[in-house]
């Protein structure tokens, strides 16, 4: 499905949600196909369709795309959501599953729009995007979160050769039939490499701290919720949805073990994550 004004399209599927991007720019499609490699492929019925208009960076008369503003704003506007930053201006109607995006010709701009779109979609469904790397080992997914430089990328680099990297930057968590799953994402950090497009049941979330040895310490319920909440990616200024995000964090922390992982940065840390007994 394309339209005359935007004859080129690309379907991006992340976490089982397929978004069709339509544009008049074949170059941008090529750029996006590379950015989201491993997560593109035609589907007959996409979940959402976005018409993408590329706005040159030098287009000075465009007030919303000033190229300077770095604050992300996500606002509910009647039945629609408005997603704004200095390099993109998007409108999306969850009811019609259709959106329009004006953005600068940068893969990072569309990357941001898709991340924000998923934060809203996942919040409504009990899931979330989390600042965390995630790795699948022996069929179970482990998330590693923490502040910048805490070791999210490091621990994913140290994973055994048979492990699968879902992401080194932005973990995608879905609630499906009462069970949490981690999905691979193309949202890459330092590794600049998309994760593997697969999913696994979420076995644990670990707040990273570097130390001289490797150990796992339990959190109480409050610490677990704080750890989850502090690392959820979320921008919407909407009281109802924000409360939902809070409830989602509480539900996740009640269901999935959330612990502190102190680790010395070598491969032995993965000895703590053996196959289930």
């Amino acid at each position, binding site marked *: 499905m394309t339209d005359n004004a935007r004859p080129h399209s690309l379907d991006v599927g992340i976490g089982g949600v397929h978004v069709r991007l339509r544009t008049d720019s074949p170059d941008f499609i090529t750029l996006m196909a590379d950015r989201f490699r491993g997560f593109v492929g035609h589907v007959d019925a996409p979940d959402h369709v976005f018409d993408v208009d590329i706005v040159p960076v030098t287009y000075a008369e465009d007030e919303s795309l000033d190229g300077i503003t770095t604050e992300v704003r996500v606002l509910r506007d009647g039945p629609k959501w408005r997603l704004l930053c200095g390099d993109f201006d998007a409108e999306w109607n969850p009811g019609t599953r259709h959106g329009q995006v004006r953005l600068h010709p940068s893969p990072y701009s569309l990357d941001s729009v898709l991340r924000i779109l998923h934060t809203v979609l996942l919040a409504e469904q009990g899931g979330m995007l989390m600042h965390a790397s995630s790795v699948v080992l022996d069929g179970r997914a482990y998330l590693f979160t923490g502040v910048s430089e805490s070791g999210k990328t490091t621990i994913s680099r140290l994973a055994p050769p048979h492990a699968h990297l879902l992401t080194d930057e932005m973990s995608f968590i879905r609630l499906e039939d009462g069970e949490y799953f981690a999905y691979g994402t193309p949202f890459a950090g330092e590794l600049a490499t998309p994760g593997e497009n697969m999913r696994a049941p979420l076995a644990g979330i670990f707040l990273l701290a570097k130390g001289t040895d490797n150990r796992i310490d339990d959190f*109480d*319920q409050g610490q677990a*919720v704080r750890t989850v*909440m502090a690392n959820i990616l*979320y921008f919407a200024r*909407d*009281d109802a949805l*924000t409360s939902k995000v*809070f409830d989602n964090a509480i539900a996740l922390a009640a269901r999935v073990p959330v612990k502190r992982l102190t680790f010395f940065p070598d491969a032995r840390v993965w000895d703590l994550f053996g196959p289930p007994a």
Partner: protein
Amino acid sequence: MSTALYLLRSSNVAARKIGDELMIMFAQDSSLFSLNETAAILWNAADGSTPLADIVARDICPAFDIDAETALRDAAELAHGLAERGILQVGNQPFDTGSATT
């Protein structure tokens, strides 16, 4: 304490009991705030219409074995502190709660 005080929960925060802890989340920035036991009593009783003195006499004095005058003074200070953080509203008149939400 010569002037009656009334407390009302702010509408732009969400409160959830997690274990023994009452956690407040601010909708504006998703930040979290944990209430101690006394603050949790004030939060739960902050209906906008019950005078603080009644809350103290009913919920705080029996729980902490403290005299009413001291408890009311401490509770008023705590309530103003919570108001400064945007968790509660404090006023000298009962609040019109017709449009208030928790």
